[in-house]
């Protein structure tokens, strides 16, 4: 099934530029004496094309973050090669076109939001006017306008995450790498983050994100790689991987019970098995967001009765 999915993905994306490429990429952590301590990533072949939202999926310790760090040049491969924009992953100049949000926003806590974005803007050699403009726009985008003069050490986890996103986008990158982007965020923050990722795609950006939260990956990713114990187990388009080809789903609104019985009869007549007709459940995320929105719209009242 994995090979099939890969072929399917390649057929659809084959005409787009390869942004990230890993060839036989592997990483083994060693101790001081050079002895193998942990195989973090077994040889990995991967291609990510322009405009994709690519998800690295797997449980903790599966090699997602290692893969991301190898692509960023933060660690060096034990064997194999990684290329980003056609350049070696260790080539610093590739970073001009990259934005990176680490698993936890590793920022300087003694800076405030404006100083943080100004600092990272300077690292991109951006002129003062552009830095100022970008910083103001990003602070507005992540909703930190009122807290822009507060030192980051006073920020909550969610706020730190948002300023982390802003620093990752300071250079308007072509490729954005997000390590556990929804980690530590409340459901609203999670939804905003997912909306942001989808918006980045709409603007033609390529996004690589790692997560162990399956719903997040499912909601936003075009393609995913499933890693387990440092090994690639599955690779392909999300819709292909998740499609159950021998089951048919029918959804309708405003249907009477008689109509439902009639449809069940029709399905049975045509050989349908394990027929289920009932009311679908919403997701807890949707329910929570509805409650919050309702409360904000009508303060002081209980959102839903019963």
């Amino acid at each position: 099934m994995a090979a099939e999915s890969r072929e399917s993905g390649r057929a659809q994306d084959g005409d787009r530029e390869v942004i990230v490429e890993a060839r036989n990429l592997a990483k083994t952590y060693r101790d001081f004496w050079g002895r193998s301590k942990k195989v973090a990533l077994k040889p990995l072949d991967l291609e990510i094309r322009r405009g994709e939202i690519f998800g690295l999926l797997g449980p903790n310790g599966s090699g997602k973050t290692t893969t991301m760090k190898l692509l960023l040049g933060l660690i060096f491969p034990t064997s194999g090669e990684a290329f980003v924009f056609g350049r070696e992953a260790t080539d610093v100049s590739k970073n001009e076109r990259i934005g990176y949000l680490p698993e936890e926003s590793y920022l300087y806590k003694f800076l405030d939001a404006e100083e943080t974005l100004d600092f990272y803007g300077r690292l991109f050699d951006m002129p003062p006017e552009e830095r100022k403009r970008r910083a103001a726009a990003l602070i507005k985008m992540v909703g930190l306008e009122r807290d822009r003069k507060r030192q980051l050490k006073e920020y909550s986890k969610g706020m730190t995450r948002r300023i982390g996103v802003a620093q990752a986008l300071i250079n308007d990158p072509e490729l954005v790498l997000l390590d556990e982007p929804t980690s530590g965020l409340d459901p609203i923050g999670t939804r905003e983050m997912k909306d942001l990722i989808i918006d980045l795609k709409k603007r033609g950006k390529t996004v690589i994100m790692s997560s162990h939260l399956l719903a997040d990956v499912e909601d936003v990713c075009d393609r995913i790689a499933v890693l387990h114990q440092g090994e690639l187990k599955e690779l392909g388009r999300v819709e292909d991987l998740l499609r159950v080809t021998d089951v048919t789903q029918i959804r309708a609104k405003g249907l009477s019970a008689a109509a439902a019985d009639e449809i069940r009869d029709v399905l049975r007549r045509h050989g349908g098995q394990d027929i289920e007709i009932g009311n679908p459940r919403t997701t807890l995320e949707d329910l929570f967001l509805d409650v919050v929105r309702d409360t904000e719209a009508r303060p002081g009242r209980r959102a839903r009765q019963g």
Partner: protein
Amino acid sequence: MVLEEAIPKFSQWIGPAFLWYLFAASLLAVIAAAASWLVQSAVYGPLQAGDRVYRGILSGVADLLGMSPRRIWALARLAIQESLRRNVLVVLALFAILVLFAGWFLDPTSVNPGKLYLGFILAATNFLVCLVTLILSVFSLPADFKAKAIQTVTTKPVRTGEIVLGRMLGFAIVGTALLAIMAAVGWGFVVRSVQHSHELLAEDVVEIRSDDGALAGFEGRTSLDRGHRHRIELAADGSGRTDHIQGHRHEIVASTAGGATTYRLGPPEGLLEARKPLRGTLRFLDREGRPSAKGISVGAEWSYRQYIEGGKLASAIWTFDGVTEADFPDELPLEMLVRVFRTHKGNIEKGIAGSVRVRNPTSGLQSDPHYFTAKEFTIDEWRIPRTLSTTTSDGGTKQVDLYRDIVSDGRVEVVLQCLEPAQYFGVAQADFYVRSGSGSFVWNYIKSCLGIWFSMLIVTALGVMFSTFLAGPVALLATLSVILVGQFREFIQRLFQSQVTGDSTIAPGGGPIESFYRLVTQTAITLDLEQTPFVAAMKGIDTVLLAPMRLGAGLFPSLSSLGTGDFVSGGFDIPADLIAAHATETFGYLLAFFIIGALCLRAREVAS
């Protein structure tokens, strides 16, 4: 002041120094490349390791060339902000407390209070500035690694060289600002502490009359201020100067109004000055008057000063070159510091008498002696007049002109003798000099602060370099170790020279094995060991051991040699050649530490 080696001209120093630097840098580069290849060979095999080393060098050079001033400045600003948020300015409060306590504890009645105050301020400033920048520089990068903030920086288009240089620059700016503030406060403290005057009342002054009853002048003494008073001797018109006590004297101006004479004393002269010396070369004559390579050792382990025996023909002779009438038209101001070694107490109330005379190095014509009493710890002076008297062969006296008869082609000899039998004068080459002028003391003080600045820059760069691959506490220890080894640089160099030449007086005691042998056998370092095969073998092993130590010591910076506090507190102008050499040496170290730091950080996995 102590000056163990003559200060070379910068133009003469730079050539050999540059060659040594190139040699050391090339050697280190080759060793580093070979070590890198060996380590990588174990993982990737020799061929791939060679390719990796080659590509690493190429990309490392490309990274260094691709550095951006804006990024460096951004990282430097970050380092400054980090320092300020870490309350680095607290050190200024500490300095203020030190200065306040210094006002209580430093003795204003010491032999030379100016030297004492200046020495304290410069030492305290040096220590605090270097300590602060050391702590900042060694803990900054490791803290970034620990907090993983380095990952968000290195995923931007930042070269490792920029991270290292930005850190060095930022902390250097912090250190420079601290140094400037401390130096300014210290300056104010020293000037306020040494400034004083005395009262001289008419009733404290008595007339001196000559045999014929004519007024020859006045004598008396000043009021007691700051723990001392001066004796005065005035000319008949009432003008003159006080005697020289505690490193200074005062100018006296007398004025008469309504029949009453009042005296006004000027500020202290000689406490805060910058003498410009013209130094000569020193040789000795032994007690029989025969040339001798050295004077007598009185058993001091530090053989800086050599001694001449009193009441004999033993002499210390300085030859000064470049003495011209144009530079010294009226007199030749000779300043001298003579130490005394007494073999018996003698008259303890009275100093040891000596004589100085000037001599023509070509014809041998010499002036009659100028007698003086050794002041031991303060500088004495003899203003050699244009007209000098000499004793002719028939016992008569003849007047000669300093430049026409004594100075020959700009060269003149000054001969020192101790006049009291069984007492000794101790001198070093730098102890006698012709004072060719005075520089600005303020500028001299600033030059001395430059010495502290150079030390601070080296400490900062060293700390940042070690912090690129070591944890904070380990980097601190490594930096301190290098500084400590650097302090012994000159000693190790002298020790090696002593070992190779066999001249044990250069550095007595021998190398590590011989020192250990002397410790075990309780043999004093000034005693020569009996020449046995065992001793020869021991010295041979020492030479082998000392060779790499000599090479290594040459690579380490010696912060004490960069310090010029002795010059300014001793009242001597810091030569421009010395400042230029120190600046060049500092730049050389900074460049080396920067490159090593950048390459080490580059080779390190930021997120491992």
